[in-house]
């Protein structure tokens, strides 16, 4: 009997120790998005030229050194944590990100965006659009006028002066989840902003209010499978 009492005492001691350790830890989150935790890129992809999706990895990952492609251009470093609505973008440190497009089941590299520069100030870093030939060197694929960028996906023009680059090197699977913020024509009256890069005044509408978070969290991510840049499978996942 005494032996069983010892076992019981040891069991209770271990149990209370586990309880004490658990109490010291942060509680498990009820709100986190599994997709956001998995995502390792600030790249975005437009589907049908209009709807913005977040991505879990960049199709450029297959090229070593792609993150430092523009290291010699002294691109501005982003602030540590800008105030950004959850789910709008993946809030990671990156000097630049890529805007991708999926059009007619083909993945295209649409434009190259400086993460922490005003959208009208790219010329001060790339006065001769140096970002595009360097990207062509990296991927060994050309930007092509045959694949024009859409004119209505966002309120300001793209910097890419030619056309998009088909991502023919890409043979992989990515996860995507819709962004909480979409332009989709924006809201309100047009507002004028002089844009030095285009030497012109741009008229644009402000973005519509973000998707309500409760609704957004219930939207599953999707798995896209590509072969030579062509989308061969698209299915809903249980990753939210």
């Amino acid at each position, binding site marked *: 009997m005494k032996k069983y009492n010892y076992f019981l005492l040891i069991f209770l001691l271990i149990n209370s120790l586990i309880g004490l350790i658990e109490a010291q830890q942060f509680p498990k989150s009820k709100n986190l998005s599994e997709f956001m935790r998995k995502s390792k890129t600030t790249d975005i992809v437009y589907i049908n030229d209009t709807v913005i999706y977040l991505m879990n990895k960049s199709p450029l990952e297959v090229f070593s050194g792609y993150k430092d492609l523009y290291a010699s251009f002294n691109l501005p470093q982003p602030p540590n944590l*800008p105030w*950004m609505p959850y789910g709008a973008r993946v809030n990671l440190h990156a000097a630049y990100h890529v805007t991708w497009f999926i059009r007619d089941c083909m993945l295209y590299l649409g434009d190259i965006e400086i993460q922490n520069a005003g*959208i009208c100030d790219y010329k001060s870093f790339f006065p001769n659009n140096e970002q595009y030939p360097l990207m062509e060197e990296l991927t060994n694929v050309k930007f092509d006028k045959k694949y024009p960028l859409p004119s209505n996906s966002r309120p300001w023009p793209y910097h890419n002066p030619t056309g998009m680059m088909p991502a023919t090197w890409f043979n992989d699977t990515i996860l995507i989840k819709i962004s909480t913020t979409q332009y989709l024509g924006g809201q*309100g009256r047009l507002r004028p902003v002089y844009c030095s890069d285009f030497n012109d005044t741009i008229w644009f509408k*402000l973005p519509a209010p973000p998707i309500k978070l409760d609704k957004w969290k219930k939207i599953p991510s999707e798995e896209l499978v590509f072969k030579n840049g062509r989308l061969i499978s698209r299915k809903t996942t249980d990753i939210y």
Partner: protein
Amino acid sequence: MKKLTKKSLDELANSMSIISDAEQMCYNGGTYVYNSAGTYLGYRGTGSDVVIASSLYATQFDSISVADDQTILNVLNTIARGIGINGTIGLTHANDNRFAEMDSTTGKISINAYSELLSSNNYYDYLSILQHEKYHQMTIGYSTTWEQNEYQAFIHQINDSSFQNVSVFLRDYTIDNYNNLHNSQSYY
């Protein structure tokens, strides 16, 4: 055919939902009035929107969300001075929907002119976000991680009285960002 009947006020009072003071402020509408130089002209009605006009009761006025950059800057700087922010506010044109940021080397606070924050046209939204960034400015050089500093900035923002009247979307997103930092010390 259903017979239509009138309800007495007492019956209506029992069946209709009760609207809080805060909700009434939103429904009634009201205006913080500034001129284009950013001078605060006064307040009329009840509510929280911000307009640009030549005088407090001018019949011609425009929402700040469609004003030019300089006017927006002037108004934001007046609001920022009112809460003791150091230096001048900047305006960025970032393409990633960030609302605001603070440069940790210069202490400069900037608001993104292309974000939903500006679309909201809500005085308390601007005030609340500026309070958040003010906390970062006040704590430059503190030996905490950026995540910890961000967490504390959200606590500062939520504790400020302006948070009582922010728009629903800003309230939701603030609480969610806060929760994520609270639970996992990250935004994710």
